[in-house]
C-alpha cells in the first residue's frame, strides 16, 4: 500500500448526502433486521397504551440518533483524487481510510436518486477487484463532476495487452448497441424468476433484486405470511378461511407479476446499452437514473437465463458477470451491492448471438454443441442417496402407523423423482468452441454460462471410487465471478477441458481482470 500523501485537497460531498447516509442506514436496518422490525411492529399493534408510548419514544430516539449519525457521517466523509488514486476518509466511530487505484477499478456507475436530481447531484460508485476491498460510493457530488471523474478513471484504467481482432473498430464515438422499449422491460419483469417476484416487492424499494441480499428480508416476509394465516384461521370457520385463502392466493398470483413488472419498469425504463471503444455503458431508470459502465475485459462470464415464462415469449435475459469483490460472501456479511452483474434484459435470439460475439470477440454461440453427462449414474446416485432413504423411511412409518396402503405411494414418488431428475439431466451440458467454454444447467428453464477459457482461475477434478471405475468425474471450474460444476461427465472430457483451459491460462499474457 502506498503512503497517505500529507497535504491533500480533501473535499466533502454536498450536504444533500446526509439524506443518502440516512437512507443507507435505514436500508441496512431493514434488510438485516427485518424480522426484528416485524416483531417491533407486531409488539406495537398488540401492545397496551404504555407500551406503545415506550415504543414510540424508542423509535424517536433511534430516528434522532440516525439523523445525527448521518450528519456526522457526512461531515467525516471526505475524498480526494491524486494522480491515479481515489482516497476516502470516513467513519464516525470506526474511522477508516481507503484508497483505490484507478487500474483496479472493476465497474463504475452513476446513479441519480430522486432526492438528488433537483440539486443536479449524483452518486458515483466505484467497484474494485481484490480480496477485502470495499466499494467506494461518493454520494452527492455534482453530476458533471461525476461524469468527468468516471471518464478520467475509465481512461486511466489498466490498459490490457489485448490484441484481439475487431478491437480497432472504434470508429464511432458512442455506438448504441441495444435499446429496450417499455414492452421489452415488461416482458423482462414477467420473466424474472418466480420467487424473485416476491423479492422484488422488497427489492424494488432497495435496488435491483438480489437473492443473497434479500434472503433475510424474504425470511421476514415468510414469518408475516404465517402470522396472517393464523389470524385468518382464528377469525372465521374452516370454510370461510379456505375461501379467504383461495382469494389471497389469487391476489398474490396476480399482484406479484404486477409488482415485478412495476419494479422492472422503475429500474430499467428506457434501457440503453452503448459502447465507446472498449467501454460498455448502460442507462436506465424511471425515477433514479442509473448509468453504469463496464470495460470489456472485466467481463468474466456471460450468463444467459431463460425460464418457462421467458421461453413463452422467446426471450432470454443476459447477465454479464464480473469478479466479485473479495469473491464470494466475505466475513459472513451479505453482499451490500448488487453490482457484480450487469443486466441485458429480454433479448431475441438474434440479438443474443450478436451480443455474445460483441462481449466475447470470436465467440460463436450458435456453433456450440452440448455434450451430455452420464444419465444412468447421475440418476441412480441421486435417486439412491437422496430420494430412496427418506421416501422409504416416511412411507415405512406411515404404513406401520396409519395404513399399509401407503406402500402404494412409493412407486408414484419414485416415478415423479425420476421425471424430475431426468429433466435436470436433460439440461446439464458442456461444450467448447474455440477459446470459449459453455456450461448449461437448468430444470424447467435453462441457464447457460459462457466463459473465456483463459479467465479460468482454478480447475478441480474429483472422482469417487464408483466414478473411477466407470470413467466419470466431477469437474469444477472456478471463475473469478462464480463456480461452475459439472457432475458425472466423461473423465476424458473433463481432463481435456482442464488441459485446454490451463493451456489458455498459461500461454496467454492477457490480464484476466
Amino acid at each position, binding site marked *: 500500500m502506498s503512503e497517505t500523501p500529507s497535504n491533500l485537497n480533501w473535499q466533502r460531498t454536498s450536504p444533500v448526502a446526509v439524506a443518502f447516509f440516512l437512507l443507507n442506514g435505514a436500508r441496512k436496518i431493514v434488510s438485516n433486521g427485518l424480522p426484528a422490525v416485524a416483531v417491533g411492529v407486531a409488539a406495537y399493534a398488540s401492545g397496551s397504551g404504555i407500551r406503545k408510548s415506550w415504543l414510540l419514544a424508542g423509535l424517536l430516539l433511534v430516528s434522532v440518533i440516525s439523523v445525527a449519525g448521518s450528519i456526522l457521517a457526512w461531515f467525516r466523509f471526505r475524498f480526494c483524487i491524486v494522480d491515479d488514486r481515489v482516497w476516502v476518509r470516513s467513519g464516525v466511530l470506526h474511522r477508516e481510510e481507503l484508497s483505490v487505484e484507478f487500474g483496479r477499478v472493476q465497474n463504475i456507475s452513476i446513479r441519480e436518486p430522486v432526492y438528488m436530481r433537483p440539486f443536479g447531484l449524483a452518486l458515483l460508485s466505484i467497484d474494485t477487484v481484490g480480496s477485502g476491498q470495499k466499494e467506494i460510493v461518493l454520494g452527492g457530488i455534482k453530476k458533471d463532476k461525476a461524469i468527468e471523474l468516471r471518464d478520467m478513471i475509465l481512461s486511466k484504467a489498466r490498459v490490457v495487452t489485448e490484441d484481439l481482432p475487431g478491437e480497432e473498430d472504434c470508429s464511432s464515438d458512442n455506438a448504441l448497441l441495444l435499446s429496450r422499449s417499455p414492452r421489452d422491460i415488461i416482458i423482462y419483469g414477467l420473466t424474472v424468476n418466480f420467487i424473485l417476484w416476491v423479492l422484488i416487492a422488497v427489492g424494488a424499494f432497495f435496488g435491483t433484486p438480489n437473492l443473497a441480499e434479500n434472503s433475510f428480508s424474504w425470511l421476514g416476509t415468510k414469518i408475516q405470511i404465517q402470522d396472517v394465516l393464523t389470524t385468518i384461521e382464528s377469525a372465521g370457520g374452516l370454510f370461510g378461511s379456505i375461501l379467504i385463502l383461495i382469494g389471497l392466493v389469487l391476489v398474490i398470483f396476480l399482484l406479484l407479476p404486477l409488482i415485478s413488472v412495476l419494479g422492472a419498469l422503475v429500474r430499467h425504463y428506457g434501457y440503453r446499452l452503448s459502447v465507446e471503444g472498449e467501454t460498455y455503458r448502460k442507462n436506465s431508470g424511471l425515477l433514479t437514473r442509473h448509468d453504469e459502465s463496464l470495460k470489456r475485459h472485466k467481463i468474466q462470464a456471460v450468463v444467459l437465463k431463460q425460464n418457462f415464462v421467458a421461453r413463452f415469449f422467446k426471450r432470454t435475459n443476459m447477465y454479464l458477470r464480473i469478479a466479485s469483490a473479495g469473491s464470494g460472501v466475505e466475513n459472513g456479511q451479505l453482499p451490500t451491492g448488487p453490482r457484480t452483474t450487469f443486466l441485458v434484459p429480454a433479448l431475441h435470439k438474434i440479438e443474443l448471438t450478436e451480443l455474445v460475439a460483441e462481449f466475447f470477440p470470436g465467440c460463436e454461440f450458435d456453433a456450440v454443441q452440448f455434450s451430455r453427462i452420464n444419465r444412468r449414474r447421475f440418476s441412480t446416485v441421486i435417486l439412491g442417496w437422496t430420494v430412496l432413504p427418506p421416501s422409504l423411511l416416511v412411507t415405512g412409518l406411515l404404513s406401520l402407523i396409519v395404513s399399509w396402503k401407503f406402500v402404494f405411494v412409493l412407486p408414484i414418488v419414485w416415478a415423479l423423482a425420476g421425471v424430475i431428475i431426468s429433466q435436470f439431466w436433460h439440461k446439464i451440458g458442456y461444450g467448447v468452441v474455440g477459446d470459449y467454454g459453455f456450461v448449461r444447467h437448468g430444470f424447467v428453464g435453462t441457464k447457460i454460462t459462457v466463459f473465456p477459457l483463459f479467465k479460468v482461475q482454478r480447475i478441480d477434478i474429483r472422482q469417487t471410487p464408483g466414478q473411477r471405475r466407470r470413467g466419470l468425474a466431477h469437474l469444477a471450474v472456478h471463475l473469478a465471478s462464480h463456480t461452475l460444476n459439472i457432475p458425472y461427465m466423461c473423465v476424458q472430457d473433463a481432463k481435456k477441458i482442464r488441459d485446454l483451459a490451463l493451456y489458455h491460462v*498459461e500461454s496467454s499474457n492477457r490480464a484476466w481482470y
Partner: protein
Amino acid sequence: MAFINLQVSMTDLPSADELVMEPMAAVYEREVKIQQLIIWLPLLMVSFVPFLLGQFIFLLLIPVVMLMLATIISRLVIRKSQVKGVALREFDIAYQSGLFWRKTVIVAFNRVQHVEVSSGPLQRKFGLATVKFFTAGGSSVDLSIDGLTAERAEQVRAFIATKIDDSATQ
C-alpha cells in the same frame, strides 16, 4: 465431445494427466501419526472412566469400541497422508489428495493472488509447513498443501512469488 475451431491440437496439449506426483516429505507421515496419537489417547483414557466408576464388566466394551474406532480412523488418516502428492510444473502446481474421493486441483501461477506459508507447533517440531494459495476464484483458500518441509515450502513460495511478479509486469 465436439471441439470446433480448435487452434491447438488436443493431442499436443501438455496433459496434466501424465504428471508424476511427488509424495509428501518423509517426516509428514510421522507427524500425522503423532497427531492421531494426541487426538485418540485422551479419548481412550476417558472411555475407561465409566468402567472405573461403575465396575461392571460390560462397560469395558466402551474402550474396546473406542480402540477399534481409533485404529480404523487413524489408519485411514495415515493412509490418506500417504496418497497425497504434489507436482510442480513450469506454469502451474497440481495437488492430488483423497483416499476414496480423489481430488486433483491445478492452479496456474499467473492466477495466484498471494501465497501464504504457515506452520503449527507440531509442524514446527517436525520442520514442516503448510503452503496456501489464493486466487480470485472461490471464497476461501484455493489450495492448501500441508505436508512439505519448511525449506521446500519456502522454495515453492519464492518460486511462485517470482512467477507472480513476472505475470504482473507483463
